């Protein structure tokens, strides 16, 4: 097999390339040719296609998300949006980083592994910032509770969230389980992780210092989810189309636990100058983002990547989404110590390249150059679309369709509400999650917010709530997003904590539908205005689009996470009646 080298690409400008199958549009492909001044090699095409997918480039959502950046600067914000996760000052020299991420489509295909690897991915994001992950939460949505497929999806998802999080030793401190027909073919699995560090421990994903080594560590690279990023995130599930089922990623929480411990030891010994996790788009993403954020270039010898499957091609290695991998930039003098820490934790680590003083990302395959690109063009200069949007035609009718204010049988109504799957006892779910591990969980189920102690001497702690109400958002995405924000804010506040920052996971249908795009734009505007009113920054988040079955999108589902700080967790306020004779007060109107 001939390797498609940069030289060869220059010599064969007219060779047909499968860019459409990789999810790139004609004009996007032309832009790549324009950037490179030639056709891309196969490996370059792979990189651009995954990095320019909706999932990685936020090409439909970017123009709207910029509003969050315009929010007034908060004193507490140490690292803002754009990094793997934002970092918030919580006092006493502590910093906290938290973020939500979706793993919706994979959880439909293989509920257990989809949910498990969703937790794994968000935990690595937090770890990457230099923090010790201290807790997780999960916000879940399924089709009707009595729909046959729910019996397949729900138990698998819950077992997957639990299986992975429990095995990492991260307490699960809260979440949601809600049901609606609109999620029958498109369940939502949003996982949140929160981590704690000292201010000085904050690590950024950038490759600095010519001569520094690029080290890949963690699991071996296999054929997992190849093409998964673009196929999963930019195509709609369609029963009739070709079976585009990607190879599913299987999580290995044990390896991730070792990765966490190894990383924390590496951070403590100050052995890295930059670090990035490998998530969607794998090495394509890690190398281009690290290089783009740094001041120089990078050169990689791709054949040094340890493989699980020796038949993988260079392009496949670049696109692989094998889990439990990280990439670090290490000074040459510290490489030996870095590798020793990895060996102690039985973590495979390999030097795969180095930082250069050029401005290109260069990737070689057995001595032949297969990638030679400006890294920013891969990582940051993806297409940005101003997609057309308009108010849904049915919205007036929907809003006018008021329910009767009083029913003939209030008791029956009340029973229907409290007896509904949304309102019922969730202990079947929460009992499958470890909420005690680490010994710092002050509040978890059944309370409205999770509360974790972060210092045993000062009793400082952090509170978190994760909330969404898609029915409100369907009726009015602007107000709905604000109601969700307000709910999470209140839940944090009632635990006794002071709300400090917001993260979000925006789950919507296809951005190519103007009505869906309108819902998205309105929800973002609502959330931004709400944050402005409450004086809170948005520190990061995640957008999941194309959540629909056939032509039918899910209800717009912004899931909002609020983080608060508690000066003394011993004074926390718990939900529920505590003793007979207590006074009941209603606050607000």
């Amino acid at each position, binding site marked *: 097999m001939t390797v498609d080298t940069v030289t060869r690409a220059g010599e064969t400008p007219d060779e047909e390339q499968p860019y459409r199958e990789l999810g790139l549009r004609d004009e996007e492909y032309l832009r790549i040719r324009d950037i490179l001044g030639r056709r891309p090699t196969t490996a370059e095409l792979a990189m651009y296609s995954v990095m320019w997918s909706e999932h990685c480039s936020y090409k439909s959502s970017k123009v709207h998300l910029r509003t969050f950046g315009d929010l007034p600067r908060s004193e507490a914000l140490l690292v803002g949006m754009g990094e793997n996760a934002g970092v918030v000052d919580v006092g006493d020299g502590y910093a906290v980083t938290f973020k939500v991420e979706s793993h919706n489509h994979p959880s439909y*295909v*293989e509920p257990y*592994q989809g949910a498990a690897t969703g937790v794994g991915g968000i935990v690595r994001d937090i770890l990457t910032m230099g923090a010790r992950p201290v807790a997780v939460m999960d916000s879940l949505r399924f089709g009707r509770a009595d729909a046959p497929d729910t019996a397949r999806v729900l138990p698998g998802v819950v077992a997957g969230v639990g299986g992975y999080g429990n095995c990492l030793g991260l307490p699960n401190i809260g979440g949601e389980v809600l049901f609606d027909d609109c999620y029958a073919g498109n369940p939502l699995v949003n996982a949140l992780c929160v981590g704690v560090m000292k201010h000085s421990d904050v690590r950024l994903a950038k490759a600095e210092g010519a001569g520094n080594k690029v080290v890949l560590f963690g*699991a*071996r690279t*296999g*054929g*997992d989810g190849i093409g998964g990023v673009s196929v999963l995130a930019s195509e709609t599930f369609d029963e009739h189309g070709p079976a585009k*089922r990607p*190879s*599913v990623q*299987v*999580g*290995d929480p*044990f*390896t991730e636990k070792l990765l966490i411990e190894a990383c924390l030891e590496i951070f403590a010994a100050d052995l890295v100058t930059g670090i990035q996790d490998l998530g969607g788009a794998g090495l394509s993403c890690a190398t281009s983002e690290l290089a783009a954020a740094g001041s120089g270039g990078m050169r990689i010898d791709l054949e040094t990547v340890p493989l*699980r*499957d020796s038949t993988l091609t260079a392009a496949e290695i670049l696109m692989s989404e*094998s*889990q439990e991998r990280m990439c670090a930039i290490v000074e040459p003098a510290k490489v030996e110590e870095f590798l020793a820490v990895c060996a102690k934790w*039985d973590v495979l680590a390999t030097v795969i390249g180095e930082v250069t003083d050029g401005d290109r990302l260069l990737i070689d395959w057995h001595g032949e150059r297969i990638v030679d690109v400006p890294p920013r063009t891969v990582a940051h200069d993806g297409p940005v679309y101003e997609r057309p949007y308009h108010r849904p035609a049915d919205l007036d009718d929907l809003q006018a369709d008021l329910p009767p204010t009083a029913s003939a049988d209030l008791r029956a109504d009340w029973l229907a509400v409290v007896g509904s799957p949304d309102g019922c006892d969730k202990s079947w779910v929460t009992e499958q999650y470890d909420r005690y591990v680490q010994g710092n969980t002050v509040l978890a189920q059944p309370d409205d917010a999770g509360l974790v102690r972060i210092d045993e001497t000062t009793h400082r702690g952090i509170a978190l709530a994760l909330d969404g109400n898609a029915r409100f958002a369907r009726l009015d995405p602007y107000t709905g997003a604000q109601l969700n924000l307000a709910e999470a804010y209140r839940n944090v506040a009632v635990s006794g904590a002071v709300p400090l920052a917001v993260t979000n996971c925006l789950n919507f249908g296809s951005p190519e539908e103007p009505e869906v795009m309108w819902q998205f734009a309105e929800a973002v505007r609502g959330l931004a205005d709400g944050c402005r009113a409450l004086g809170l920054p948005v520190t990061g988040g995640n957008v999941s689009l194309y959540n629909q079955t056939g032509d039918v999108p899910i209800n717009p589902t912004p899931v909002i996470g609020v983080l608060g700080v508690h000066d003394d967790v011993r004074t926390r306020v718990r939900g529920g009646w505590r003793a007979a004779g207590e006074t009941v007060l209603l606050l607000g109107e």
Partner: protein
Amino acid sequence: MPRVVVDVVLKPEISDPQGQAVLGALGRLGHQGVTGVRQGKHFVLDVEGTPDEAELREIAETLLANPVIEDVELHLDGA
């Protein structure tokens, strides 16, 4: 009563952390001769009357295994 055995194994391209853990343990215990381990599931079914291969295959492929990540081997002779 006739017995049917169904072995469910991960597809070769799917990573197998369980097998890897066993392989690592074998190495540390000095069993260097084993160079690869894959771990799967083993089902022994008691069947009434003559086993119906088509039905058993359907059971194996839809209930015992997840065909997205697993392959199935059917042993109608129960071995």
